[in-house]
């Protein structure tokens, strides 16, 4: 036992005043230099586990059990704050999820790193500036010499996370805990960050406890995986074992729902529920020649392409990728949405109207969308995706260029025309926690577009009830408030609100990027079902190419307000023309690739 870097035994955490513990008898250990992934959905207790190792548990939680760390004798749970403070950074340190709030906005980052060095006094004072420069250099910040003098707001999320890593590693700890360090970052940045974490941890020979809900991420970084579910450890094993031969149902479900390439026989993604139903020999039998020996059915698309692309084909255009003929016919008819040379420039305005530099969010965008198509818009943050959506939905106007949606010219539309546009076009927003009014009941939230459309009371109630059923929620959800729902459920409510007026076009702005993997599959399936059922034209914005690949028939790749590449999804994936697209595709974590590489 003393050989282990970290030993957690029978850790049980109970909130004050509650009977049921939120963490049940969690035991885990980490050998020196070992890299372990801790996986689970939100609320599974993975962060609590990490916090108890750091001694950062909120006070209203009572922890029982043993936490032993090499270099400290005794139970960490009983240690005083002073002892803990000595251990942190020297022996164990942590990188948090949200890079935007983890740094002090009023301190230069060099000073923030120096602070950690100074407090622990391992480095002689005179050498601190040198050491800071070294650390910034180690995390590959561009221009480490001047980066010391930057303030956090001058850096991007990825850069801040690098600074966090530099701070965490400043005193060469023996254990680094990363709590979803890349969840808030773009895919391309995420890739770099993961590589960097792996590299730095190896360089200083530290152990790594990597917390995430995304299996694909863990595969590339860790040796061993611990799966948590509802406050218990349900499975432990090497990356290979967990990914190829999961023993626990939950692990299998998680694996199935993370894999966006595998679909069941209706062409839907596996969810936790269906993965159990579809697991085992049935699926394996369908694809015996799978190269990596994955248990998932990667051949689902071959078996059942038709249901994937729209069971109720009213317009027949939806089959565009699977069926070239219908795609061609769709292109011949007048497109539903047409944008030509759209620009949007945000004028910087300083105090008292002084001019600051202008920001070009969109610099000349051309594209068309056929009725019934599913268009994916892909790009990193800051590429102008959301601005484009705002213009299409009439919430914003282009600086120049023409946008036509149906028969409405958006750039010159009267407020009446805009109202008509909005009746036909609805939006699902990214953040399920911000897009529902916290003070309204679900019934009122879903009914709101109907009120605006002038639908009278009785019909409103009926349609709201229908819609809430269509998104698989109970009818007594209607009387509840948003905070009583989980992220996935809220996103269903958002979808219900968007579809209750029966729009022709549904615009989805990263609707699943804030959701756990397991819930993501459910929401995507729901979207697919509803798009079919209501014969919607879908505009789907995402930074996750895997999701777009699953859902969309066509794709536009955007960068810095320009369209880099566009075309049918399959073509773009199989044969990306641009370096940028290739990088995006390469950066998207995929289970199969991660396994092959590992």
């Amino acid at each position, binding site marked *: 036992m003393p050989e282990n870097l970290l030993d957690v035994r029978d850790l049980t955490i109970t*909130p004050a005043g509650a009977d049921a513990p*939120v963490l049940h008898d969690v035991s885990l250990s980490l050998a020196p230099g070992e890299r372990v992934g801790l996986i689970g*959905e939100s*609320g599974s207790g993975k962060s*609590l586990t990490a916090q108890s190792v750091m001694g950062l548990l*909120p*006070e*209203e*939680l009572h922890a029982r059990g043993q936490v032993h760390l090499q270099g400290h004798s005794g139970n960490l749970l009983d240690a005083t704050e002073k002892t803990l403070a000595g251990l942190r950074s020297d022996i164990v340190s942590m990188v948090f999820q949200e890079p935007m709030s983890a740094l002090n906005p009023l301190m230069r980052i060099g000073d923030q790193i120096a602070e950690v060095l100074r407090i622990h006094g391992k480095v002689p004072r005179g050498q601190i500036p040198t050491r800071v420069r070294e650390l910034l250099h180690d995390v590959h910040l561009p221009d480490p010499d001047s980066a010391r003098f930057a303030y956090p707001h001058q850096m991007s999320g990825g850069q801040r996370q690098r600074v966090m890593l530099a701070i965490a590693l400043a005193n060469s700890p023996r254990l680094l805990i990363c709590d979803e360090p890349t969840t808030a970052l773009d895919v391309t940045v995420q890739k770099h960050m993961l590589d960097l974490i792996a590299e730095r941890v190896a360089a200083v020979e530290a152990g790594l406890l990597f917390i995430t809900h995304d299996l694909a991420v863990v595969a590339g970084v860790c040796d061993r995986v611990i799966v948590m579910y*509802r*406050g218990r450890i349900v499975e432990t094993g090497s990356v290979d074992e967990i990914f190829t031969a999961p023993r626990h149902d939950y692990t299998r*479900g998680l694996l199935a729902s993370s894999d966006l390439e595998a679909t069941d026989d*209706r062409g*839907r993604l596996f*969810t*936790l*529920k*269906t993965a159990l139903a579809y697991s085992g020999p049935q699926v394996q039998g369908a694809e015996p020649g799978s190269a990596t020996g994955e248990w998932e059915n990667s051949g689902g698309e071959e078996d059942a392409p038709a249901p994937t692309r729209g069971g109720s084909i009213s317009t027949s255009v939806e089959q565009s990728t699977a069926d070239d003929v219908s795609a061609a016919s769709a292109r011949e008819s007048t497109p539903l949405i047409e944008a030509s040379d759209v620009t949007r420039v945000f004028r910087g305005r300083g105090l008292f109207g002084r001019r600051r530099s202008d920001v070009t969010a969109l610099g000349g965008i051309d594209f068309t969308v056929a009725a019934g198509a599913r268009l994916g818009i892909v790009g990193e943050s800051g590429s102008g995706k959301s601005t484009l959506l705002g213009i299409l*939905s009439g*919430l914003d106007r282009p600086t120049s260029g023409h946008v036509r949606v149906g028969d409405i010219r958006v750039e010159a539309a009267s407020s009446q025309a805009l*109202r008509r546009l*909005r009746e036909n*076009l*609805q*939006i699902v*927003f990214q*953040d399920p926690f*911000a*897009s*529902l*009014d*916290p*003070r*309204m009941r679900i019934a*009122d*939230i879903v009914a*709101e*577009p109907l*009120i*605006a459309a002038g639908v009278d009371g009785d019909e409103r109630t009926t349609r709201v009830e229908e819609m809430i*059923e269509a998104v*698989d*929620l*109970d009818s007594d959800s209607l009387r509840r408030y948003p*905070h*009583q729902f*989980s*992220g*996935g*459920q809220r996103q*269903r409510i*958002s979808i219900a*609100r*968007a579809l209750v*007026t029966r729009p022709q076009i549904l615009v989805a702005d990263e609707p699943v990027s804030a959701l*756990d993997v397991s*819930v993501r599959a*459910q929401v995507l*399936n729901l979207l697919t*079902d509803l798009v079919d059922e209501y014969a919607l034209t879908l505009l789907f914005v995402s930074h996750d190419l895997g999701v777009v690949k699953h859902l969309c028939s066509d794709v536009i790749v955007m960068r810095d307000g320009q369209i880099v590449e566009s075309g049918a999804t399959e073509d773009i994936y199989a044969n990306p023309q641009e370096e940028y697209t290739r990088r995006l595709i390469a950066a998207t974590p995929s289970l199969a690739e991660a396994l092959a590489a590992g």
Partner: protein
Amino acid sequence: MNPNPTGAPTPHETGTTASAKPRSRKGGRRTNASMIIGAALVVLIVGLALVSFVWTPYDPNSIDPVARLQSGSLAHPFGTDTFGRDTLTWVMVGARITLLVGVVAVGIALLIGTPIGIIAAFFAKQSWGMWIDAVIMRANDILLAFPALLLAIIFAAVYSPGTGPAMVAVGIAAIPGFARVARSGTLQVLGSDYVRAARASNRRVPAIALVHVLPNIAGMVIVQASVAFAISVLAEAGLSFLGLGTQAPTPSWGRMLQESQQYLSTHPELALWPGVFIALAVLGFNLLGDGLRDRFDPKMEARGA
């Protein structure tokens, strides 16, 4: 067997709801303490005022030359003043004016200031309307620069001193606070996705203001109201003390303080009782405001039901 059976949400989804983790590190204890103490003090003051309508130990205006300037006794627990009037009676009756001034002044400020703030915020969000917002808010700042006292003196000069003009002056002076709070709250709400969603579904501006903005800034406005109430109580006492507020013979805590001045060295308890009650009222409304603020803290919402 099929992926999305209708009916209940899947157990996994409900699972994540049920285990809503405690979000706030502060915990709820402090909140409750200041809320409870604040509410208790407010109830005490309101109770005194209400009881005074039905029963007081003595008639507030009955003069008893024999029993003047007495210290506390069974007959007169708080003692008597220079005319032999019972101090306890005066404290009770004085609570009425205090509360009246608070309610009217806060009412004026809230009903004028909140809409001003909301309207300004709506204009601030329009590129063509930003100057309107600027004009409204700068006018607001000018008003803020005027001390309530100065306003009250002007009012007293124009319409003879009295409770009415004092209330209106204090109320007007409190408008800018409400306008600012309402404006910043509204800006926050207008930037949220649910307002974008409402706009996207064609809700008009008045509907957004009533349905989304008002309920969501109500918490902040209530907090502001309780703080403004405390300030009004203080302001009224100050104005009455200076003779610009409530006039004789109506009992008021401020006037009691003023009348007790000349006996401060010989009978300090005359100043003590109105002073204590002014302090209690101010403390009560402030604590209540603090407690309410924590209650309406959006971070606390995850726990609520």
